[in-house]
C-alpha cells in the first residue's frame, strides 16, 4: 500500500516538474504589461511647470517617470523598514542599488530598522534626452519623516526637508535611478500654530440618522430623513452638528465619488437649516503605519478640498478619540501622524479651525499648540467637570475649549438593572447645561436618537455596553422625545 502511495507521489512530483517546465515565460510578465497597479504610495507630487532642456516631454512619459520615481522611493522605504532588498533591482540601476545594499547591511549589523516615508515632492524636470532614455530632475523640498528603531525600540524621530538631484535611465521599461544626490537638507521642527483661526462658539449635537448610525452614507442614505432631523435640531435651539467621515468606508485614498456627493448633500441640507457642521475625519482609521501616511494624506486632501468652501462647514475634527489608539499603536506614532495631518489639513484649508476630539479631558492638552481650538469628550462625573475644565483652561491658555461629546445612557434593564432612567438623563442634561452657560462652553451632545443597532466596531460585542450605547438619545426608538430633550440646548 505504501509502495503504491510512494509511486503515486513520485509520479505526481515528476509530472508537476514537467508541467512547470512546459509553461513558457509569461509574456505579460516579460513586458511588464500585467496590471498590478495598486496605489500604495501617493505623497503630494507637484511638477513645476515644464521648461526642461533637451527634448520636450510628453504627458505619458512624464507620468511614467513620476510613477517609477515614486515606486523607487516606496521600495526603498520598504527595504529600510525590513532590511530586505526586494524590488530595489527594478528601480535602481546596478551601480546605484549598491548604495542601498550597503546601508541595509550596515543597518542589519546594528539591528537598526527605519520606518520612513515622504509626504511631499516638488520635482522640476531639468532635462530629457533626445532619444528618450535619460531624464534628470531636481526634487525640491522633499518632506521626509523617519522613525529609527534599534533592536525594535524607537530611538529617534527624524523630520527633514531635502532637495535631491536625480538622474534616471530608462532600462527594461523601468525608469531607474542612476544617481541620487542630496544637495540641500534642513531638519524641520513640528509646526507651531502661529495663526489661530477664528473660533465661533457653538451649541450642537452629534448626528447620525436613527436607522443607520455609523453607516450614514450607505444605501439607507435619505435626504428627506436627514432634512427632517435637521429641522428638529434647528428648532430645538441648536446651531451645529458633528458628523463623521469613515476612512475605510469612503474608500481610503480613492474616495468614493458617490459617498463624497452624499457628504456634500448633508452639508447642503445643514446650510438650508442654518446649521454649521463640524466634520470629523478618519473615523475608524487605526493603522497609522508610516508607509500608509501618504494614503491618508490623499484621503484628507480630497475631503478637505471638496468641503473647504462650503458655507456650512464649521471646522475639522481631525480624528475621533485618537488617544484610545495610544495603547495599541504607541503614543509617539499616533501623535506624529496627528501632527503631520494637522499641518497638512492646514496647508489645504487656511480658513477653518482644526481640533481633535480627544476621548477625555486629560488627553485634551496634547498637541494644543498646533490646534485652533481644544475639544474633548466628557462622560465622567459632572461634579468634576468645572474643576477639570479650569485645569485644562490654565494649561492651554487662550485656546478656546469645547466639549464635542457628552451624554448619558438612559438604559436600565437586564444588563444593567441599576442604570439610569430617563429622568436621570434629563437631570444630567439640565445640570451640564447649567455648567455650560456658567463657563460659556461650546458643546455638542451625544446624540439625537436612541439606536436599534450598534456596530461591534463602536463599543465592542459586550451586550451591556451595546445596550447602554443604544440609549444615549434625546429621542427614543419610537420617535418620542425623552425628558432630556427639554435640556438639549439650554438649562
Amino acid at each position, binding site marked *: 500500500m505504501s509502495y503504491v502511495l510512494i509511486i503515486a507521489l513520485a509520479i505526481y512530483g515528476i509530472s508537476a516538474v514537467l508541467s512547470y517546465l512546459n509553461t513558457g515565460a509569461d509574456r505579460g510578465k516579460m513586458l511588464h504589461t500585467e496590471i498590478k497597479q495598486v496605489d500604495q504610495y501617493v505623497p503630494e507630487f507637484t511638477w513645476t511647470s515644464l521648461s526642461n532642456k533637451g527634448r520636450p516631454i510628453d504627458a505619458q512619459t512624464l507620468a511614467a517617470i513620476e510613477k517609477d520615481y515614486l515606486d523607487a522611493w516606496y521600495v526603498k522605504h520598504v527595504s529600510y523598514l525590513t532590511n530586505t532588498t526586494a524590488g530595489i533591482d527594478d528601480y535602481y540601476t546596478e551601480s546605484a542599488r549598491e*548604495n542601498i545594499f550597503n546601508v*541595509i547591511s*550596515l543597518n542589519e549589523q546594528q539591528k*537598526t530598522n527605519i520606518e520612513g516615508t515622504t509626504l511631499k515632492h516638488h520635482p522640476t524636470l531639468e532635462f530629457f534626452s533626445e*532619444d528618450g532614455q535619460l531624464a534628470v530632475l531636481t526634487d525640491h523640498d522633499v518632506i521626509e519623516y523617519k522613525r529609527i528603531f534599534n533592536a525594535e525600540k524607537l530611538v*529617534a524621530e527624524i523630520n527633514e526637508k531635502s532637495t535631491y538631484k536625480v538622474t534616471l535611465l530608462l532600462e527594461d521599461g523601468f525608469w531607474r535611478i542612476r544617481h541620487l*544626490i*542630496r544637495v*540641500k537638507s534642513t531638519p524641520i521642527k513640528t509646526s507651531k500654530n502661529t495663526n489661530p483661526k477664528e473660533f465661533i462658539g457653538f451649541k450642537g449635537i452629534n448626528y447620525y440618522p436613527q436607522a443607520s448610525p455609523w453607516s450614514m452614507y450607505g444605501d439607507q442614505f435619505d435626504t428627506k430623513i436627514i432634512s427632517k432631523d435637521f429641522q428638529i435640531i434647528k428648532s430645538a435651539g441648536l446651531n451645529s452638528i458633528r458628523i463623521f467621515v469613515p476612512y475605510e468606508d469612503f474608500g481610503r485614498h480613492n474616495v468614493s465619488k458617490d459617498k463624497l456627493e452624499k457628504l456634500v448633500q448633508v452639508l447642503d441640507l445643514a446650510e438650508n437649516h442654518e446649521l454649521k457642521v463640524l466634520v470629523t475625519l478618519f473615523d475608524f482609521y487605526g493603522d497609522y503605519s508610516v508607509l500608509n501616511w501618504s494614503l491618508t494624506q490623499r484621503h484628507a486632501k480630497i475631503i478637505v478640498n471638496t468641503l473647504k468652501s462650503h458655507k456650512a462647514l464649521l471646522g475639522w475634527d481631525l480624528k475621533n478619540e485618537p488617544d484610545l489608539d495610544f495603547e495599541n499603536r504607541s503614543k509617539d506614532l499616533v501623535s506624529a501622524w496627528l501632527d503631520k495631518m494637522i499641518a497638512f489639513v492646514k496647508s489645504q484649508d487656511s480658513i477653518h479651525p482644526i481640533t481633535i476630539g480627544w476621548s477625555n479631558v486629560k488627553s485634551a492638552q496634547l498637541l494644543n499648540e498646533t490646534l485652533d481650538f481644544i475639544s474633548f469628550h466628557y462622560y465622567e462625573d459632572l461634579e468634576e467637570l468645572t474643576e477639570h475644565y479650569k485645569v485644562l483652561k490654565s494649561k492651554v491658555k487662550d485656546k478656546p475649549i469645547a466639549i464635542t461629546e457628552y451624554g448619558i445612557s438612559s438604559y436600565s434593564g437586564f444588563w444593567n438593572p441599576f442604570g439610569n432612567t430617563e429622568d436621570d438623563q434629563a437631570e444630567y442634561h439640565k445640570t451640564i447645561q447649567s455648567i455650560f452657560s456658567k463657563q460659556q462652553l461650546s458643546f455638542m451632545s451625544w446624540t439625537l436618537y436612541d439606536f436599534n443597532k450598534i456596530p461591534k466596531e463602536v463599543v465592542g460585542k459586550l451586550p451591556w455596553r451595546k445596550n447602554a450605547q443604544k440609549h444615549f438619545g434625546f429621542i427614543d426608538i419610537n420617535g418620542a422625545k425623552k425628558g432630556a430633550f427639554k435640556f438639549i440646548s439650554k438649562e
Partner: protein
Amino acid sequence: MSFKYLYIVIITMTIIISGLNINQDKDHNSYSLITNFKERTAGDNITLEFAFQGSSDVFLYCSNSYGSIMLRPKLGKTLLFEIPKSISKKSGILNWQLHSDANLMSGQLYIRPKSKIETLETYIGPPSIEAGGTDYTMLVIVPTDNLDNPLADSTKVIIKHQFLETHKRDIIYTEHGFGYKNLYAYKENGRMLISSECLGLNSKEYDVNVMPAIPTNFKILADRIHSYADGNQITTFKTSIIKDRFDNTVSDGTFVSFYITNKTGHKSVTSGTTIDGIATAKMIHPDQEEQWTVKAYIEGIANSEPITLNYEQAVLDLNISFSENNRLITVGPLQSFMKQQVPNGLNIHLKIYKDDALVHQLIEQSVDGFGHFKLYADRYPKGTYTVEIKTAGLTKSFADIKL
C-alpha cells in the same frame, strides 16, 4: 591616632566629592562637537568627535543621499563616530543628529565629489539621423569619480567629432551633474565619429549614421530586347539614381513601385528596391499590341515622370482548321515576328455560341505553336454553333459550324 583621623577625613572627603561629581554629571550631560569641518571629499575618512560630560549612552543618526544609519560611539575621553566608508563615499549632504533619549544636537556636512575623473558615462542617441542640417543626435555625458559620484557642476567637457573632412571640438560645462551637446547632421550623408574628453580622460569612439534625407523626384527608363508583344520577353524598368535634396544618393533598399497602365486603362504594378540609388523592376511583355504608360512612385514621397512604351503585334495571323466533323479545332501554327513558333503557353480563348447565346468558353495554351480544342458530343449536342477564337489580340469567328 591623628593619622587615622586624617585618613578618615580624606576618604570621607573623596567619597563626598566623587559623589557630588556623579550627581553633577547626571544633571548636566553636555556635548559639543570638536570636529569643525563643514566639507569633506567623498572617500575621506570622516570621524565626528564630540567632547562630552556625563552620559556616553548616545548614538549618532547619520544619513546620506541614499539612506540612513545609526552609529555607536567609540569611547575615550571624547565620543568618536567613524562614518562608514560606504556612507561617506557618496557625494551630497550628510546629515547627522546626536541622540540620547532626545535629540541633543544636529548638523550636516557637504561631501564633495572627488575632482579626479574615473569614468565618462556617455549616452548617445538617436543612433541614426537625417542629413541636411536640421536633424541632430544628442550626446549626454556624466563624468564620474571612482566612487560613482558625478563630478561637480561646471566641469569642462570637450566634445569632438569627425565627419568627412570636418574635425570639430566643442566645449561644454556640466550642470546638474551632466553635460550634453546636440550634434547636427551635415548636408552630406556618412558616418559621424564622436568622442569626448574631460579632465584628460578620453572616452571611447561613438558613431552615428547620417542617413540621406528623403528622396526627390526621379526619372525612369525601360530596357527591352525588342518591342514585340510576344508575351515572352521581359522589359526591365530602371530609375535614375535617386537622390535627396542635398544630392545624397538615397539609402539602399528604398522601395519603388512602377505602375503600368495599358490602353484600356487597366493597371499592373511591379516593384524593386534601390541599390546605389537605382531601383529595377521587371515585367513580361504583353501578348498583343499594347501601349504602356509607366510611372514610378516612392509612395508618399517622390515619383517619376511617366514614360510610354509601344509593343508591336508579334502574331500576325490565325490559322484555324476544323476536323473530325468539326469537333476538333486546331489553332496554328501560331507564328511570331520571325515566323518562329510562338513560345509555349500563349493563351487561346474559344467561345461557343448557339442561337446568339454564349454556350461555353474554353481556354487552352499553345504547345509547340498549336492549340487544340475538342468539342465532345455529350457536351455539345448536334446542331449549329458559332465559334469565336481569340489569341494574341486577334479574333476569328466562324458562323454555322455544324456539329
